[in-house]
């Protein structure tokens, strides 16, 4: 099938094609899902190298489960977020909370803003990542899924295996903790001079 025609298919259909041996479906799924998995892992772990390992492992699990995938039962992205979060949790437990958040924030390579603005944006994202790193694991996961990945509470509840009320509680507490952690960093965020 042509690449253009494939790109209009949803993740479910692409996964079925992939399971049937379609190489283009594999490529398109990687392009579509790889960045999201990597970004999610990076925000949960605060470590770029570890996040790459987790993202590769999560995608590998997707490739392996593809033949048994039942279209329509669950969203591919929901499944991937759950697998990614579980892999991150395993890594964080092994590291006993000793992740190295300081130098690991994502570096945006798209430098359409001017260099000064890019540096400011990078500093803001660094500060946000460090504040996220300081949150309890579940709060961090809920805040990232709700406010950065932009998912709805029912989907987050499915990913985290909890009720929607628990999601609301976690995101509310997480946001309060973030606000408190970032309150003393207004200069870094570029908000101090406003």
């Amino acid at each position, binding site marked *: 099938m042509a690449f253009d025609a494939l790109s209009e298919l949803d993740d479910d259909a692409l996964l079925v094609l*992939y399971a049937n041996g379609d190489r283009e479906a594999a490529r398109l799924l990687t*392009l579509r899902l790889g960045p999201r998995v990597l970004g999610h892992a990076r925000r949960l772990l605060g470590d770029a190298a570890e996040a790459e390992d987790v993202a590769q492992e999560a995608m590998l699990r997707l490739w392996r489960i593809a033949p048994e995938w039942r279209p329509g039962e669950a969203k591919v992205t929901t499944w991937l977020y759950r697998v990614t979060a579980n892999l991150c949790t395993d890594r964080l437990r092994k590291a006993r909370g000793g992740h190295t958040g300081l130098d690991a924030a994502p570096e945006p390579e798209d430098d359409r803003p001017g260099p000064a603005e890019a540096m400011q944006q990078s500093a803001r994202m660094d500060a946000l990542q460090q504040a996220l790193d300081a949150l309890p694991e579940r709060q961090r996961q809920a805040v990232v899924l709700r406010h950065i990945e932009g998912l709805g509470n029912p989907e987050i509840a499915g990913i985290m295996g909890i009720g929607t009320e628990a999601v609301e509680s976690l995101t509310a507490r997480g946001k309060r903790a973030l606000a408190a952690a970032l309150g003393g960093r207004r200069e870094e965020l570029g908000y101090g001079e406003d």
Partner: protein
Amino acid sequence: MAKTDTTGPLGDAALDALLAEARDTPDHLPDALMARMLADAEAAQDARAQAVAPAPQRRGRLARAFAGIGGWPALAGFATATVAGIWIGISPPAVVSDGAAYYVSGGGAAEDLYLVDTMPAYDRIAAEVQEDA
């Protein structure tokens, strides 16, 4: 943006703006990682294709011997012969039982089988010679 909040927690608007900025920052997939993911994907496809392909048949010695005697059709013939043998043993036809009687009985009837005259004309020739004499 949070103009008057210079101390204490960051205001809601500022925090929401920061999170929105993070949401709008595209996640970049490094080329090397993309290549590793694709290699995994294709390796998984190849492994599955090999697993699905039928394995070449390897027949053992017994299977080859079985095929040598004709396989299942021959076995059906053996089975028929076996059943027929059992049936004849249980309920023998007259011709079988009469013939068998010569072998199983120890009496004179059995001896008759062995009294075969190999030169039936010799007695008559001998008698004629005797008469001439």
